[in-house]
């Protein structure tokens, strides 16, 4: 069941209000996205922790509804 990019962005921003999010639909099927997320909340966190924060924001959608999300995260500020 594909997931619209706007929903992904909204969920990430709900959890990380300062986040700058860019999303590319890799295959146009709503199931394979690449996303870059910048947030001050990532400061001092390892990459794994940063990605886990984004997955938490997606409330269990990752790996189920959303099959593939190629994620790049960066601390901001």
């Amino acid at each position, binding site marked *: 069941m594909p997931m619209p990019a706007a929903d992904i962005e909204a969920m990430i921003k709900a959890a990380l209000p300062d986040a700058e999010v860019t999303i590319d639909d890799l295959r146009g099927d709503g199931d394979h996205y690449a996303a870059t997320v910048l947030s001050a909340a990532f400061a001092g966190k390892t990459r794994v922790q940063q990605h*886990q924060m984004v997955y938490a924001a997606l409330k269990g959608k990752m790996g189920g509804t959303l099959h593939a999300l190629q994620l790049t995260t960066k601390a901001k500020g």
Partner: protein
Amino acid sequence: MTDANTHERIRLDVQTNDVVLYMKGTPDFPQCGFSARASQILRMCNVKYKPVDVLADAAIRQGIKDFSNWPTIPQLYVKGEFVGGSDIMTEMYQSGELQQLLADKGVATDAA
């Protein structure tokens, strides 16, 4: 939730093998692009690793996600520590960080 037996099987696997890659399919026949990339990266790093095909074991497929609190496959473990999935492996490989981590942890390379 993961049953204790599955959790223990995973714990033992990552403790007793220097490098473990939980993937979909096998290195020769990966069943998913991200798993293929992950095994390719390890091949390029020239390290011996234990591949675990999660498609062949449903308990492990769910159990590994609970074990690391990471929702997707593949998952890389080096000396018992969760390193990341395909994205993080790619980023680390491109920056040389993965090669450095393997060297720092004293993982033997395949090159004889």
